């Protein structure tokens, strides 16, 4: 827990210090959704919000280890954090708090602008709150694997998108069902299960991927 907090606090501090970088994915989310609202008049399902939240996540998570790798702070993390698991989890939690969390918080506004109704919005927010941390955790595995190549970007997206698909399907279907008044609890529970699984497993995988990347 101490390691988790030490890393969490540090990364939040860094995010606050470099607000403009940290805000990028959130700005992307707001811009794309609002432009979509203006540029299309056909009925867009809440799936659109989920797709854009997903892309905002890929954009954000891609660089999560980059700066630490360049500055050598990642090396220090690998040498000193025993065990590595809580430190990695702390880092990703801080990352989600400035990328996934604001997207979820802003989604009611975006949904209201797009659809002009408030039906199903609580479920949309809930699905994003439970779903986006899973995306961050899975995406971090891809980001960790590609640091050594020096250019994550598209490569991370290609690596992790297949693993994002279940989250996207359950997230979008929960939100869509809630909007049309159909049952949505199964999809939400499935998102919860995916999150539980990724919290327990992904930090290990990230640690292994980081160790492999450090060899170069």
């Amino acid at each position, binding site marked *: 827990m*101490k*390691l988790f*907090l*030490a*890393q969490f*606090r*540090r990364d939040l*501090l*860094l995010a606050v*210090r*470099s607000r403009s970088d940290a805000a990028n994915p959130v700005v992307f989310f707001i811009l794309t959704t609002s432009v979509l609202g203006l540029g299309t008049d056909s009925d867009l399902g809440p799936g659109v919000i989920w797709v854009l939240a997903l892309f905002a996540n890929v954009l954000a998570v891609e660089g999560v280890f980059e*700066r*630490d790798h*360049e*500055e*050598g*702070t990642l*090396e*220090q*993390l*690998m*040498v*000193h*954090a*025993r065990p590595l698991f809580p*430190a990695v989890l702390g880092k990703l939690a801080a990352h989600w708090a400035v990328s996934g969390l604001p997207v979820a918080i802003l989604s009611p506004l975006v949904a209201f602008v797009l659809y002009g109704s408030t039906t199903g919005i609580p479920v949309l927010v809930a699905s994003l709150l439970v779903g986006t941390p899973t995306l961050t955790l899975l995406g971090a595995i891809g980001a960790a694997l590609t640091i050594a190549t020096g250019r994550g970007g598209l490569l991370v997206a290609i690596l992790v998108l297949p693993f994002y698909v279940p989250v996207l399907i359950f997230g979008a279907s929960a939100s869509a069902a809630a909007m049309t008044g159909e049952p949505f609890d199964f999809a939400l529970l499935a998102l919860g299960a995916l999150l539980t699984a990724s919290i327990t497993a992904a930090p290990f995988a990230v640690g292994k991927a980081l160790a492999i990347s*450090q*060899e170069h």
Partner: protein
Amino acid sequence: MNDSLLVAENLRCTVGPRALFAGLSFTVDARELVEVRGANGSGKSTLLRCLVGLAEPESGDVRRRVEVQYLGHRSGNSGRMTPVENLQWLAGLRGGEPDRGSVDHALVRVGLGDARHEMCDSLSAGQQRRATLARLLVAPAALWILDEPLTSLDDAGVELVVELIAEHRARGGGAVCATHRTLTAGSASARVVALSQGTP
């Protein structure tokens, strides 16, 4: 040699088709300084990374028996945090309470007393190197692994490194340094591991 801090046995590392070193064995005992010498590109950094556990040797075995502190080529300090914040983070990672007193003390010792609340990005190269040296004092470890610790340091800084290593040895610690000049103080001696390309 059961009380060695670190035992390296029969290490072999290659880059592409070229062997950096092979059949390399040595130990680091308490109170001992091991200087790793060799031309640029001879594999000093690679060897040190193997010793720390950041890299895997192609074959051979590294046994670390104590906690290790590693100073690499990269500073290991975030440029957007102050030396104080960086050291507190490190102390937190080691599971200790980030203790302001010992952090301040360490920074004064390495000559950064006045610059301790400035962002690392705005410090000079030499000052940044001093900030990394402060890690040795804040997160004590019995074995230091230092990769060219003298880079960008002035004469007083070189003196400081030599002193720190001497004190560390006096306390019973050991150190492995990749270096181009000796880091021993006074009459103390060092074991030299020379890397030359194409070691059989």
